[in-house]
């Protein structure tokens, strides 16, 4: 049985690699970072173009809704 550290993700007894990746959005790019056990920056893994170029307003305007809420009421 192991205990779990909520903020580091390390389990007692774990000996595996401690680095993780995190994705940061910058303008129209997504930057994948490798982070150390204390979330310190290690290196840039990948820079890619975000495939979703829509603004929040464009997303709102482009989506409608299905009027089904009443069907799910008791």
């Amino acid at each position, binding site marked *: 049985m192991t205990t779990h550290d909520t*903020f580091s993700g390390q389990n007692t007894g774990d000996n595996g690699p401690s680095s993780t990746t995190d994705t940061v959005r910058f303008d129209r790019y997504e930057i994948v970072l490798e982070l150390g056990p204390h979330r310190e920056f290690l290196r840039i893994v990948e820079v890619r173009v975000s495939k979703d170029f829509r603004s*929040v307003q464009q997303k709102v305007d482009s989506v409608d809704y299905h009027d089904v809420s009443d069907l*799910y009421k008791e």
Partner: protein
Amino acid sequence: MFYESEPQAVLRFGDVVRGYVLSAPQIDSPGTSPPVRYRVEVHSPMFAVIMSPCCSIGEHTLAISPLDEVPPQFFRNPYFANDLTNINRPMSAEKAVWPDKWATFSSEEKQERMAEGDAYALVEHFVYAPHDLLPTYPVKGPGGPRETGYYTVDFRRICRIECNKIVKPDQAPLETKVLQISIETRGELRDKLAWYFGRTPKEDML
């Protein structure tokens, strides 16, 4: 990945938190100033979700919403029952209802509904996936009783709390933080919440 495997030591939009008290005024006679009859009900949900945008967390104020058990009716739809977080994303009209219900619609109604394209259903809800830190509970679905670990945020139940310990996202009671959702999930929550408040009612469309 619904949750971040390594939560940050800051409060963020979409975080699951605990230890907060929520209140909702119940006004029996609105229209007079002050109202003659009202009461304030206070409750402390087991879990709540931060609904303030990350950059707006601070100045002793936080918008949160209780994390509620999922209504059992949601399990009528096998597309939802298979993964209730499907409710968080736009879907076809056929997937928005269960097959027996879809079969009752006329061909014209089916065509009308399908013409909407992919769209949100159950617009007030954003479902949180099961996690070891969220206890399961029994629900009575069409296939009989079952245990589930899904929870939902109802955008209609967002309320404001004040807490002197909340100064900035990283100067806040971090001990209240239970789970952090992933960047992708936070994007979905942001999109659906923005859509919920930002949609133009049909009667206002020119």
